[in-house]
């Protein structure tokens, strides 16, 4: 089983490359595309596109399905959600923690004031 951190690393590594981001953006716009349609906007050869698709597939960002001679590529949402959650987790952690810290400190302040006549 691929662990959480390894999955995140694969997602981030896959997203580093501008061509792969463009492929993902195209899939996002179109919902899905054939490999040849994906290769069209880029000034690179089909084998190079296939390599990028392998990286995206390995990261779980896309799913390929074959019907006859046509390979259709679609996005998979799970790794993207996971990566975004990871990026937000510190914000979430501190936001919730500081909410409680505020309540606690304000109670302590009220107690300190009440002790004084």
């Amino acid at each position, binding site marked *: 089983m691929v*662990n959480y951190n390894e999955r995140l690393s694969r997602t981030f590594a896959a997203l580093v490359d501008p061509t792969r981001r463009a492929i993902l953006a195209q899939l996002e716009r179109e919902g899905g595309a054939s490999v040849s349609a994906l290769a069209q906007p880029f000034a690179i050869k089909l084998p190079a596109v296939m390599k990028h698709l392998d990286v995206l597939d390995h990261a779980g960002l896309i799913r390929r399905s074959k019907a006859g001679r046509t390979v259709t590529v679609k996005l998979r949402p799970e790794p993207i959600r996971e990566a975004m959650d990871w990026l937000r987790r510190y914000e979430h952690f501190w936001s919730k923690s500081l909410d409680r810290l505020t309540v*606690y400190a*304000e109670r302590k302040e009220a107690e300190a004031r009440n002790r004084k006549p």
Partner: protein
Amino acid sequence: MTSLTLVRRIKARPSIVFDALTTPEGVALWWGPDDGPVLAAETDPRVGGRFRVRFRMLDGSEHESSGEYLEVARPERLRMSWRWKGDAEDPGESLLEIRLRAIAEGTELTLTHSRLHDEETRRSHERGWTGALAKLERHFLSGDRTGPSATSHPPRSQA
């Protein structure tokens, strides 16, 4: 997003806020991403001293963070290193800095958590994929969820 800064205004004097940040009794009452309990809180707020906090989340998962106090200037400044314990979710060491400023209503707290990501993530970010990621996510969220509700997901370990 290699660092995160949050600012809060608290109706309490800086010394009270500082103690809430640095005493085990205080830490035990506020630390954590949800209302799950703090299981252990140890602090030694002096330069070179260490802290360790273990908490359980409402989903049952347990997490621990620890680090070293790098700067302790009561009641205005606190700086410490930070590390999650556990192989599955350890993204390396990060840096936490908290400044407390006296204001009329009490204290303005500025928290900065920096060096959050490992090298690979930082590089990835610098090359600008965060926007692409957010856009893709919005695509998937539209329809079945409203707004960026993924923010409600806390840290978790999924080894």
